[in-house]
């Protein structure tokens, strides 16, 4: 077993060796510009781009013509939201989203507020979920777009986007969903889920960084977008720029492997590792689960727990053999704890002690056991050093103390 152990697969994933193998010839042999229509180098590159489009479309049940390549999910989110807003602004200037979206959605919405759009940020429940009824109730005459992520990157909560999408379509509103964390982990079909726009990232599913895609529905309803990047007219003018052929080929291969994950036992294996980790961590005193209980409402590879009385950044230093992440303020530049956990109503004290585990294709049972044992021992070490734990053990109610906020 090699240390440190990578358990931060929501942040990014290791490229699958098969992905790298697929990409390499496109850097050396098949290096042409896919836009060069009149020689063999261009044709070969175009064939790679086309094949990847089919592989990706196949993963989400789309038509290859509905795939637009982007530089990654941030651009996809931005393009979906800005693109719809600017194209349909005469129809209305109201957009609905949730308060646990990725910053690529939230900050795009904030930017639109400055352009005169009005945004409704729906609150989530204590598990991180919104309902179709909430969405439906928030839709107004001037609502043009709803954006709700399929699954959350911190707490793994999976929204009922089929119902949310149906509510949008009932009222003629376009529906965008960021599915970055879901692809290759939970089944995703654009028709069944009633989505019009879907953000996709390669590097969250064992592909390379710097490449992503936006699914753009072409029929019933046909979605139009105002482009954000102008130039050579690639991707039917929606996203200009020379195709990053090797990256695109990597995305395609990653999509093919993501689809295979549902039939080759990978999903069951990853789910088993996550459940094993959770059952071991549950044995520790005062460990709280953040987000839905492991099951159909939670990503199979996600675990997010608060280890009471152990500040998150200190915990990460203590378990430096593990690469994980924390919602603690001390790990963020803003010194505010995770806005996602706060939106769920997780107490700020507990938000500071949260640790997120993102399990992946390459993790082993041995690694999970090592991780669980290490966390358990370091919880003990940090609690022995924690004045809060000492007070609680003395029977003091921490809420009875008048703390000095600083």
């Amino acid at each position, binding site marked *: 077993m090699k240390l440190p152990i990578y358990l931060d697969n929501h942040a990014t994933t290791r490229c699958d060796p098969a992905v790298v193998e697929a990409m390499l010839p496109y850097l050396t042999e098949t290096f042409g510009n896919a836009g060069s229509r009149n020689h063999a180098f261009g044709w070969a590159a175009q064939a790679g781009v086309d094949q990847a489009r089919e592989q990706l479309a196949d993963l989400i049940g789309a038509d290859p013509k509905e795939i637009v390549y982007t530089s990654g999910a941030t651009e996809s989110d931005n393009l979906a939201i800005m693109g719809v807003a600017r194209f349909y602004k005469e129809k209305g200037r109201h957009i609905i989203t949730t308060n646990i979206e990725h910053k690529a959605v939230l900050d795009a919405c904030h930017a639109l507020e400055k352009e005169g759009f009005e945004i409704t940020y729906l609150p989530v429940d204590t598990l991180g979920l919104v309902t179709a009824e909430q969405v439906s109730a928030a839709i107004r005459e001037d609502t043009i777009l709803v954006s709700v992520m399929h699954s959350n990157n911190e707490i793994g909560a999976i929204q009922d986007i089929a119902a949310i999408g149906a509510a949008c379509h009932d009222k003629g509103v376009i529906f965008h969903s960021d599915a970055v964390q879901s692809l290759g982990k939970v089944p995703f079909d654009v028709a069944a889920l009633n989505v019009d726009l879907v953000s996709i990232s390669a590097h969250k599913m064992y592909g390379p960084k710097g490449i992503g895609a936006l699914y753009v529905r072409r029929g019933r309803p046909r979605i139009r977008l105002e482009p954000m990047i102008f130039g050579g007219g690639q991707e039917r003018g929606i996203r200009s720029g020379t195709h990053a052929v090797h990256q695109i080929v990597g995305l395609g291969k990653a999509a093919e492997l993501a689809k295979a994950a549902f039939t080759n036992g990978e999903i069951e294996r990853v789910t088993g590792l996550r459940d094993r980790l959770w059952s071991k961590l549950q044995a520790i005193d005062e460990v709280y689960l953040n987000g839905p209980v492991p099951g159909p409402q939670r990503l199979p590879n996600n675990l997010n727990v608060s280890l009471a009385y152990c500040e998150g950044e200190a915990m990460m230093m203590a378990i430096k053999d593990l690469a994980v992440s924390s919602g603690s303020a*001390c790990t963020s530049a803003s*010194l505010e*704890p995770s806005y996602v956990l706060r939106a769920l109503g997780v107490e700020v004290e507990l938000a500071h002690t949260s640790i997120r585990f993102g399990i992946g294709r390459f993790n082993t049972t041995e690694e999970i056991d090592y991780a669980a044992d290490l966390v358990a021992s370091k919880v003990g070490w940090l609690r022995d050093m924690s*004045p*809060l734990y000492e007070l609680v053990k003395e029977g003091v109610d921490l809420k009875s103390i008048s703390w000095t906020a*600083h």
Partner: protein
Amino acid sequence: MAYSDKVVDHYENPRNVGTLDKNAEDVGTGLVGAPACGDVMKLQLRISDDGIIEDAKFKTFGCGSAIASSSLVTEMVKGKSIEYAQGISNSTIAEELNLPPVKIHCSVLAEDAIKAAIADYQKKRASRLAAADASPKA
């Protein structure tokens, strides 16, 4: 966060972790910070009648630099006078540990903890002296 070797050393091998009897007359306890802010320090000093800090213990809930800051101050104040300890500023702590700007508040908290512990001791001592004055001479 990329910390200095000193922070990592104090974090991994914290000095003087523990608890003194907070009810003892010669022990001053400072509890500063707030759980909601993500850091709480408890610093305890045992102080002799002639004002020398004979022992120092801490417990801290907080990030690596908060733990390191409190560990460092226990080392700095042990064997020193109250006056010396009161003169320790957050910038001394921050410089000693080479804290990044975003972690300066940890050193501020450590300074506050020293002052709070000494204030607690002095309050106890004052009420002890007052009680002694008030009691009838034998």
